[in-house]
């Protein structure tokens, strides 16, 4: 359950001790160990060799660990990326079902060799081009392995591919983002999703932008977001959790609906709002999400305390 909660997943560069050694203190739900765009070509091999020890470093505060590999070096990267403790492999710039199939086969072999439960590592095809967006349904239905989807297809690479301005004040990604999200939803694949929040400044390190983004995602019912800067972690982790008021309302809706169903009613009202099966389903989702967040927070606290109380040499 704990690795289902990724209110904030932050990229860290394993080659930079300043980032990787401190990451666990920042409170993120997920750290993404990057071998891709944040690592210069000459550093790739050194980075690969640091992944296994970086897992231990980054999850000391109870975070889940993802690894982002390079599209041109799938065969070279995966043997350095698939280890116990890795929850998900991110496959950037995915364009075809054959690409996810190829990665799946390598991961399956490595799982077997390294004593990892077969199929337990999720694969996350990142859709960053028009071809990937068009092929999304085939990509997401290609495998027996558990998949996640970004449920969106924005970002820098998509902007380059589409020839659009990335930092605009309107939603220039509307079609590919919605198209990818719908395919994921149609296949019952968890889509992390995204919401357009105008950011013409182009900056990615400002806390007020983080708060705006968190509020918009929360309002839109989206539970996951990525971050490039630690200033985004706290606003996203707290901002994407349900509020006590939302939990309270969901509990009242649940109780009310169950009573009225027992009495044979399908529609009723509570506090001036219509209560029906839709409100009930929505309430159940809120309660489940609230419980998952609480469990994740408790686990992070426990892991952090354990690390702080451990003898110095293991920190």
């Amino acid at each position: 359950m704990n690795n289902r909660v990724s209110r904030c997943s932050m990229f860290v560069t394993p080659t930079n001790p300043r980032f990787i050694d401190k990451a666990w203190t920042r409170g993120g739900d997920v750290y993404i160990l990057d071998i891709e765009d944040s690592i210069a070509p000459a550093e790739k091999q050194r980075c690969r060799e640091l992944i296994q020890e970086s897992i231990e470093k980054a999850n000391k505060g109870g975070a889940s660990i993802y690894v982002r590999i390079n599209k041109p070096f799938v065969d070279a990267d995966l043997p350095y990326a698939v280890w116990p403790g890795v929850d998900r492999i991110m496959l950037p710039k995915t364009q075809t079902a054959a690409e996810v199939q190829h990665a799946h086969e390598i991961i399956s072999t490595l799982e077997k060799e390294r004593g990892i439960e077969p199929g337990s590592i999720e694969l996350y095809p990142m859709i960053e081009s028009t071809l990937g967006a068009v092929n999304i349904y085939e990509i997401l239905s290609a495998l027996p392995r558990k998949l996640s989807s970004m449920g969106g297809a924005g970002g820098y690479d998509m902007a380059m591919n589409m020839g659009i301005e990335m930092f605009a004040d309107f939603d220039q990604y509307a079609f590919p983002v919605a198209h990818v999200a719908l395919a994921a939803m149609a296949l019952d694949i968890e889509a992390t999703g995204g919401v357009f929040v105008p950011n013409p400044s182009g900056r990615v390190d400002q806390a007020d932008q983080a708060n705006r983004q968190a509020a918009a995602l929360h309002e839109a019912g989206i539970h996951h977001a990525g971050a490039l800067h630690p200033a985004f972690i706290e606003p996203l982790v707290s901002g994407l959790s349900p509020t006590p008021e939302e939990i309270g309302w969901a509990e009242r809706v649940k109780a009310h609906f169950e009573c009225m169903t027992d009495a044979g009613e399908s529609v009723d009202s509570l506090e001036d709002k219509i209560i029906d099966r839709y409100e009930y389903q929505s309430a159940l989702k809120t309660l489940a999400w609230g419980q998952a967040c609480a469990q994740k927070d408790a686990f992070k606290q426990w892991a952090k305390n354990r690390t702080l109380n451990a003898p110095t040499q293991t920190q």
Partner: protein
Amino acid sequence: MPCRRSWLIQSVLPSTQHQDKPSEKADVLVLDLEYSVATRLKSRARQALREQLLNLDAIQQSAFVRIDWSTRWADVRAAMYRGIQGLVLPGPENPEDIADIDTLMSQMERERGLNQGSTQIVLMLESARGFWNAQSLAQASPRVSALGVGRIDLTMDLKPLPQNEFRLSRYLMSRTVVAARMLGKQPLGAFWRPGTRGGVANPTQTQEAAREAQLMGYRGSFCVNPDQVAAINHGFSSE
């Protein structure tokens, strides 16, 4: 093709709510066996259908029946009587299901002396799988006359965006109108805005939602409250 802008959904059974007569006649009355009928009252509702359809036929009110997907076989049998113009199928996902319903409808038409192939199907899309398959669903039976967008904010739990619209709603409306127009089906739907959730839109909100949908290519919408009928008729008028 008759003018079918407003599709007023009403429970087959007398209800304590929404008993006002619309100030304007709905272009289509949709007798509902689904959402507005509690499970324990379904069989009573089915029994009441035949007579209601006859009554509506007598006053020349165009009538459709919305069935409950989970009890579709019993519902289709209960609905296929003189006076029915078509079925509204909520939440379809697989084209094979539509073909099966078509077969049952043909059988009922034969048994009950209705004109062969005359009873239409309106698809009311309500789920991600349904929207993904919109085109093949619409092609699954020649009876399909309209492709509708249900209250997706509720059925798909789509929450508001900062742009004051429901997440994915613009794309889903656009995707559906493309499929409908390409296949020559009537596109049905209104561009509902956040703020009407948990309640039913008032006439002003309804007219705006209808107007915006008209501009997107839609030519009619479902509604639940009688006072929405005039708003929908006006919203979908050409001037």
